[in-house]
């Protein structure tokens, strides 16, 4: 148990940024972000015993995190008891609070907030540099469809960005 836990924690921490990004993209509210963070970690832990090394850990992690974020978004549910992340010293900062963040990044996050949950998932994977094959494996969409969908999402995002650009 302890060995499994240590191995899981180590792998999780290697890709912890991924969870922070998913939380920020799917939740505007700080409390919601904390809830989603815990939900994703729990779901990852629950699934870790059955995780086969067939896929890369980061690919599997994207799939679980995005599935959790999307189903959490769709479901209205009572909040279960949570560990206080503040007490554990964990904070999920706004993207704008990151030292290297500039206005462009804040703008990008604002524009992404206008997308649907599935579109958010696709654009996050694209921005994180996933290949079409990886995106297909994570989202369950065929390789060909990934390109088509992504182009549509990018043009939608550019339209939103243009509106924001005009308002600045």
């Amino acid at each position, binding site marked *: 148990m302890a060995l*499994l836990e240590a191995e899981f924690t180590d792998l999780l921490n290697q890709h912890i*940024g991924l969870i922070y990004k998913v939380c920020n993209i799917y939740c505007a509210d700080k409390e919601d972000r904390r809830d989603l963070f815990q939900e994703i970690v729990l779901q990852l832990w629950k699934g870790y015993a059955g995780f086969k090394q067939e896929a890369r850990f980061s690919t599997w992690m994207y799939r679980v995190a995005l599935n959790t974020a999307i189903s959490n978004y769709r479901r209205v549910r009572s909040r279960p008891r949570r560990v206080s992340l503040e007490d554990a010293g964990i904070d999920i900062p706004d993207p704008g609070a990151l030292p290297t963040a500039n206005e462009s990044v804040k703008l990008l996050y604002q524009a992404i907030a206008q997308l649907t949950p599935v579109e958010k998932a696709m654009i996050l994977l694209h921005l994180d540099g996933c290949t079409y094959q990886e995106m297909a494996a994570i989202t369950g969409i065929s390789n060909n469809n990934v390109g088509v969908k992504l182009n549509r999402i990018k043009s939608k995002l550019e339209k939103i960005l243009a509106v924001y650009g005009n308002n600045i």
Partner: protein
Amino acid sequence: MATTFEALQAAWQTCDQQWQTQKKVSERLIRSMIRERSVTTLAAMGRQNLLLAGLFLLYTAFFIACIVGNAFDYTAVVFFIPLSVQAVACLVGALLLLSVYQRIKNISLANESLAGGLRQAIDANERHLKMSHKIWWCYFMAGAAFPFTCLPAAIAKRGTAEALGYLVIPLVIILGMVLLAKKMGWFKSSKQESLKRHLAELESHLAELEAA
């Protein structure tokens, strides 16, 4: 400021490393998360049991009132049997639920006894599921026998053929519908399904804890 997608993508990459340097998760924190989630699941199970126990106690009071007030004008003690069986089934069901609630309430999910606590909760609820199935059948059979207790009075008032028509034919139709519904799986109550989901969740937590 850049607003084209490509320029923003480059800005996104510059931020990427910053996310990775945020505070890491510890093993202790993960353990705490599992414990808190288990506490929530147990609390939900407890609330559900308490509500159901209250409902069964109400049914018990209703059947007792029918017996004490002789609501159906029975002339022989034997006719009281179906109502009595239903009252007893409801009472036993309520007591069973209350005992499960009490057992769950007394379970401590402190770190060192998490697996043990979850095992106790699973055992208590599984036993309850088995018992509740038996109680439900007693209740159902007594309910099916109930119309026959009104038969002698109906025969005296309307004659044999009409009385049988009034009581037996609807009973046969209802029994047929019940059997059909059972075959179609419509008796799977949402409460029982949700209890089973809760149990499955607890079992998955337990499996995680027991995995070597």
